[in-house]
């Protein structure tokens, strides 16, 4: 074996060794979802001594009187709404900021950058009061409506950067052909913006799916619970150790959509993040 080949093998071995440590918690979760609850806390071994497939059936049993599929549906509805809202309104705003001329553009753009840096907590309580006044607390509206108002300024910024890279000659040509701003946006900009739109859609989906804080604040009746809220019930209940198996089974199930999304789009995700500095 040549020294270069040896070095290469050593490199693979080192990377894989670190990966094994890194991925241990995920594998442990998967293994635990297939163990009897007693065995989870007493054994470090990954392969279950007894395969407890019934954990998955138990995980799907109704919780606080609500069928578990309902939590999946609620989470899906909120995530889908957030994706549609973000893609639609953030791209509109980005086009305006990047291409159109109007007097207040610069101060508005500056304010948008400020909202990226602003801790959410500063607007949290008045926002809550507003939604309370509108009678929207304990509905999905507070979680979805803001996305239709382009409040995720990060994605506006991402798309502004992207639109700025597109050659202006394209707009120009369309303008000469008689297109107004709206048709330029839909026929020229939007199709070219696709990679940024996909990045936005995937991140919005995953972040909304994993979100907990806002759901905790706005959703109170079990019928409206999302997966994170349902999972949290396992923390509250005293007999949680006895429920470890089903808890991990539901955790695995709740992560599946995110992992599938990741597997399907990881190239977009990682490239999009490297160029924009997006956070995971």
């Amino acid at each position, binding site marked *: 074996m040549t020294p270069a080949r040896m070095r*290469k093998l050593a490199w693979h071995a080192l990377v894989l060794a670190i990966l094994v440590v890194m991925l241990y918690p995920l594998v442990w979760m998967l293994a*635990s979802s297939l163990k009897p609850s007693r065995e989870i806390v007493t054994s470090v071994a990954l392969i279950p001594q007894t395969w407890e497939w019934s954990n998955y059936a138990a995980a799907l049993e109704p919780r606080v009187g609500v069928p578990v599929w309902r939590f999946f549906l609620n989470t899906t509805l909120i995530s889908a709404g957030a994706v549609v809202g973000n893609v639609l309104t953030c791209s*509109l705003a980005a086009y305006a900021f990047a291409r159109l001329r109007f007097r207040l553009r610069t101060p508005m753009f500056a304010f948008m950058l400020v909202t990226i840096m*602003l801790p959410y907590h500063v607007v949290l309580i008045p926002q809550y*009061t507003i939604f309370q006044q509108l009678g929207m607390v304990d509905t999905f509206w507070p979680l979805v409506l803001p996305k239709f108002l382009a409040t995720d300024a990060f994605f506006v910024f991402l798309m502004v950067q992207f639109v700025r890279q597109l050659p202006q000659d394209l707009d120009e040509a369309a303008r000469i052909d008689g297109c107004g701003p709206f048709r330029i946006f839909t026929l020229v900009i939007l199709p070219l913006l696709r990679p940024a739109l996909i990045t936005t859609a995937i991140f919005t989906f995953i972040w909304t799916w994993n979100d907990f804080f806002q759901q905790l604040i706005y959703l109170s009746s079990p019928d409206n619970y999302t997966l994170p809220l349902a999972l949290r019930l396992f923390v509250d209940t005293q007999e949680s150790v006895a429920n470890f198996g089903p808890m991990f089974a539901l955790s695995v199930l709740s992560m599946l959509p995110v992992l599938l999304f990741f597997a399907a789009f990881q190239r977009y995700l990682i490239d999009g993040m490297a160029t924009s500095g997006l956070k*995971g």
Partner: protein
Amino acid sequence: MTTTSTRSAARRSRRRSGTYGDHPATGYLFLSPWILGALLLFLGPMLASLYLSFTDYDLFSTPNWIGLENYERMLTDDPRFGNSVLATVRFVVFGVPIQLAAALGVALLLNRASRMSGVYRSAFYAPSLLGGSVALALVWRSLFTADGPADQLSGLFGMPSRGWVNDPQLALAVLVLLIVWQFGAPMVIFLAGLKQIPQELYDAAAVDGANAWQRFRSITVPMLSPVIFFNLVLNTINAFQVFNAAFVVSGGTGGPSDTTLFYTLYLWRKGFVEFNMGYASAMAWVLLLGIALVTVLIFRSARSWVHYAGEKR
């Protein structure tokens, strides 16, 4: 540099719009959702929460103006507030640098042409994707619970086992480990930065007889310093606002002995458990000021260690 290019771009587009007649209202029309959101969900609420921070607002009755009382109470009469600041600062101070070091370490390791690079990169990134989720926080809690895997491991080294999450000295470490483990996002950004460093620099240094450590010290770190700076600012700001992990791992309490009572967790308790919305608003403004202060300090320090290409020293 940036201002000139924006200005010339502006001039260009002004000329164009002059020629082809952009209607000035079009911009506002396209921006109308954002304008509505910025006014109703940001600008208005910011002013409102500033006002509320000087009141005793409890969500149900009309707020009464109490001046600086909330702020005074924070500083003089609320030990839990002090605990929450301490827990958060410790979390940031330990978590962020270790996380970035891990990110840089693995990025250096992965910065090598191989057919497997893409697969490895994705695998290292996966935890970051799930890291903020309740499901993963539950896993973390169980890993470090009494007699859990971490306990059994530390038992091998003769440490008493009562569960890391129940031990005031270790509970915070559990959360630090969780954020360190999610180094995927800064790692990907580091990898992109490493690709920008010209190979000639390393070749020249090798000819001069510099060893690997010297090359890392005098080429990689200075060339990468803008990216390190970017990651430092971003991850510090985010770490100050961590909530899910502390909530789930401590069961919403911030225990043991408030060692994991993160700022946002305490703010949530004040606002949405005790309905002390005025106090919570004041806490939000202190958080904003704290983050702004730390960001300014990092920017200040950057002058001495961040080097931009083409900049004279």
